[in-house]
């Protein structure tokens, strides 16, 4: 179909994107690998020397590193759990006939469109603040002590904030998938005497599996790199209680100016993300091909 002429033209047109993305992937990543092998601090310019793998041993034996890996996974899994379960529930609800469905949809989508720094600061100050926050007022209203969310449960608070931002995304995608479910199939199942629960388990859930997989894939990509929410709320603290890998590398690089150490951390983050991506892609491949 395509002539030789158009085929070479096609290559020419793909070239800029491919070259740019290749450069974007290879050049900085190669530099990161190179820096990770150096003793290199921005405060001591000209003192760079080859350091072998010492940056890696430093990073991998740092207790903060294990805490950061744990926190990273806790954020990903916690947010995924809340958004997928909540998203399925909300999608089922929004799929029912009701008055003003369009407006409810708009209300539910809104948090996804809010920039992370605004979302985090609004939650931190106006809701979770132990003195002036709305939660503190509600607690006092029912006779409880106000709870200092970000000081006493920093990781949980961050998971809540991030889940609030991503719940609309899961809902929207699951709702779209739900609406493509054949009405007649549902009716047929009902005629055959299937209850609401068995209709959900045997009909709705399998139909949603593809959309759920997509939600998990895309959210995981973004959730592995949560940054702004931590920066403006807890700054990783108290201590390193709410530091994830992204934040740990940022702190090493731009607060301690340790280029070598931060680069080693960056490479470790890339390796971990690739392990996660490997399993995800396999899972996705199975679902998308089915």
């Amino acid at each position: 179909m395509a002539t030789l002429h158009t085929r070479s033209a096609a290559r020419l047109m793909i070239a800029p994107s491919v070259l740019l993305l290749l450069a974007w992937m290879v050049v900085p990543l190669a530099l990161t690998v190179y820096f990770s092998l150096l003793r290199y601090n921005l405060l001591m310019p000209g003192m760079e020397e080859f350091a072998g793998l010492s940056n890696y041993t430093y990073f991998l034996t740092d207790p903060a590193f294990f805490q950061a890996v744990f926190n990273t996974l806790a954020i990903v899994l916690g947010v995924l759990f809340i958004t997928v379960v909540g998203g399925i529930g909300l999608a089922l609800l929004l799929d029912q006939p009701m008055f003003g469905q369009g407006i409810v949809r708009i209300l539910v989508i809104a948090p996804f469109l809010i920039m992370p720094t605004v979302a985090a600061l609004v939650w931190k100050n106006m809701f979770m603040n132990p003195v002036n926050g709305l939660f503190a007022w509600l607690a006092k209203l029912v006779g409880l002590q106000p709870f200092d969310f970000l000081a006493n449960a920093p990781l949980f608070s961050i998971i809540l904030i991030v889940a609030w931002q991503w719940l609309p995304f899961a809902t929207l995608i699951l709702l779209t998938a739900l609406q493509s479910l054949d009405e007649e199939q549902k009716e047929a199942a009902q005629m055959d005497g299937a209850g609401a629960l068995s209709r959900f388990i045997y009909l709705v859930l399998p139909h949603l599996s593809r959309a759920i997989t997509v939600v998990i894939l895309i959210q995981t990509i973004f959730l592995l790199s949560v940054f702004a929410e931590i920066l403006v709320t807890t700054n990783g603290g108290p201590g390193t209680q709410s530091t994830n890998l992204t934040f740990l590398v940022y702190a090493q690089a731009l607060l301690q100016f340790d280029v070598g150490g931060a680069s080693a951390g960056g490479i470790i983050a890339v390796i971990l993300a690739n392990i996660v991506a490997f399993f995800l892609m396999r899972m996705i491949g199975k679902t998308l091909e089915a």
Partner: protein
Amino acid sequence: MARNVSTQRKLVTTAVAWTIGILIFFPILWTFLTSFKTEAQAIASPPAFLFFDWTTENYFEVQSRSDYFKHFMNSVVISFGSTLLGLLIAIPSAWAMAFSPTKRTKDVLMWMLSTKMMPPVGVLVPMYLIFRNTGLLDTRTGLVIVLTLINLPIIIWMLYTYFKEIPGEILEAARMDGASLAKEIIYVLTPMAIPGIASTLLLNIILAWNEAFWTLNLSAAKAAPLTAFIASYSSPEGLFYAKLSAASTMAIAPILILGWFSQKQLVRGLTFGAVK
């Protein structure tokens, strides 16, 4: 009778759905309301919901104290600039892959998607140093370049799924009639692809507007877009709820409106066409 029951059920569903919808939306509504309060009212206990002296003073204060408009313009330039530049690079690529696919097209697409899986911290250090050494740090140009690169895979994927739906025969017909490649793109493909390109544009402006890793790390005072500007309110001296709310409202309002218009395309764009 049956009709009666269903109306009743519909009313219950409506009540439940509206309650949940309003609860989810409440933080935004609360920010909006607080932006019209005085600082004293903003932290009053019990909180005032609607009955307070409405004032627009916070908005003027935010503008005069921290030059809000400058940061707004930075956001506009960075998000529009990176999106338009991305489209310019992506349209020919997506076109070629959709209409002249080879055995490797699927692999190329998957590879492009996989570049999104690289965590940004993996390249934070070299990018920061490259930017510092080339004078791109804290410039709009620098941020446009980075945001173009990080959103390019999404732009290509979105365009690809839209272009795929345009029947190839139409292009063949144009080619038979002697249209050159350039003419084919400009006069035949572009008009049919406009809706897809528009959705891609909209979604990427939203993504770029809200991007908060590179904008926070690679900008300081000069080129800081709204994400970084709002982050400056996290320091204790900036802890004024009413002003924070006014600044936040102005930062999110434009994108909230854009997003509501494009909610259908959001799903498709964000799932790379896997869910339509």
